[in-house]
């Protein structure tokens, strides 16, 4: 039995590299307010950094009611090796572009959820370990957007009103002369 355990430990040490994953994400949340009744598209960037001396594969998922409005430019990427968790040198980083598209018609006034960054669990033991970092997103649908017409529509309306007034005056004058 002891011999079996020794072989097991030897294999464990041989096959599993004792390295570290060291991920940082920034910012921790976004609070976004958009006008109700107005189609809106907002772009934000999340920065994720690696300080470990080995590259890390990062997976992105979106959860919560916010997910129907969010699109990501990618859902997986590789972060190059960093300078080491104890180093003062800058980390390697990737910027993840996040687009939040809110349609004109939305039934609720508040949506929330998070963008979650994970690495792949380790293998080789009973419990694989992984880390997660999340960025919360709170979306508030604010007050009704004011109707804004293009300038040419406004000018056309003014001209139309003037023409109507002129025609009324002209008609009155004609009747008066008769």
């Amino acid at each position, binding site marked *: 039995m002891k011999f079996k355990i020794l072989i097991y430990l030897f294999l464990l040490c041989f096959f599993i590299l004792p390295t570290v994953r060291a991920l*940082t994400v920034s910012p921790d949340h976004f609070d976004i307010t958009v006008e109700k009744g107005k189609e809106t598209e907002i772009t934000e960037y999340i920065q994720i950094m690696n300080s470990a001396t080995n590259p890390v594969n990062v997976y992105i998922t979106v959860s919560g009611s916010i997910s129907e409005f969010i699109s990501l430019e990618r859902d997986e990427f590789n972060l190059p090796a960093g300078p080491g968790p104890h180093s003062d040198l800058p980390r390697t980083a990737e910027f993840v572009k996040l687009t939040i598209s809110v349609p004109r018609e939305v039934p609720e006034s508040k949506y929330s959820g998070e963008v979650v960054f994970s690495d792949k*669990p380790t293998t080789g033991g009973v419990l694989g370990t992984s880390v997660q970092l999340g960025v919360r997103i709170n979306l508030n649908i604010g007050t009704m957007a004011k109707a804004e017409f293009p300038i040419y529509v406004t000018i056309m309306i003014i001209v139309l009103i003037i023409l109507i007034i002129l025609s009324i005056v002209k008609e009155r004058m004609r009747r008066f002369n008769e």
Partner: protein
Amino acid sequence: MSRENSILFFIIFLASFSIFFKLTDFVLVGAQLENIRGTTANVTIKGVLDNIVVEEYPVNFSFLNGNAPGFGNYTKQNLPYLNISLGPLTNVRWNISINGTNMVNENGNIITVENIFFNTTNHPDALSLSNIHQELEYEIEPHDFRLIYFYLTIPVGAANGTYYGDIWVYVWSNEASEDSNNKTWSGLSNTTVTVKIAIGIDWSLKPIDFGILNPGVIGAKALDNYGWPTNITVDRNTNVPVDLYINGTDLVDESGVPSIGSKNITYYNYTHNQYDLIPLLSDSVTHTLNNTRPASSTHGDFENWGAIPNSTDVFSYWNISLAIPGLKGSYYGNVTARIFVAGEIE
């Protein structure tokens, strides 16, 4: 020869030779005449440095809503440079130097001036800005200009907030008169950056392992350094206190069938906090591994897993109990560690 004929002859003589004269000769004659009259126009124009003209300021490094700490090569936003020239009265060649101050945020946190880099070539080889003047370029033509490009490294773990610093551009000339041979442009609160909240976690890539166990075992310890303990560290780049949580899956057998519930696995904590004089802290509480994190909590999984500062090592010790009949073979699951800004799950 009569006097009239002599004059006529002299005029004809001069006219004949006039084809050999040049315009400058006449000017010379005129000048000599003026000299004779004592009316010399003697004008001396002194060398002047006009005021410094700076365009494309301030030096703002904030990308959208702000930047993460622990990252370098942030460039000045809008255009990556300041455009430096001199006013139209300048008639001498000039030299340029630059200096700046630390950037400070509303809470007095500092990004030192050495983290700002600059050059005139938009090339990664840049000089570090300093409190004292650094000479950048010499003998620039009077009406020429220089673009100074800026880059910023935000130190690892820099506190969040908006930082401001000053920058000065200094111009001088050895060709200018003493009363106008140097000029200074003061860009007070002109360097700025907003640092966002960042949270980070380090965990060894070693799995948690219990080795080969007998069926029915209770409270078996994990293997040394493979869960006895395992060390999670709040990354140095984290700039706010965080709460730490762990959750995990049930263990499945080799065919993927869930066979051992996560609640058969327990863990407890011993936290070594670099920032306290107390070397070891323990809640003396054992937690079972849950599939989900708590919906609300005033701290992390344990009381001392809340509001953890950066660079703190958090140790946990793992056990498994297998009081389940019929187990034989290999079983696997996953555990996930996650940090939140302290108090975020309430």
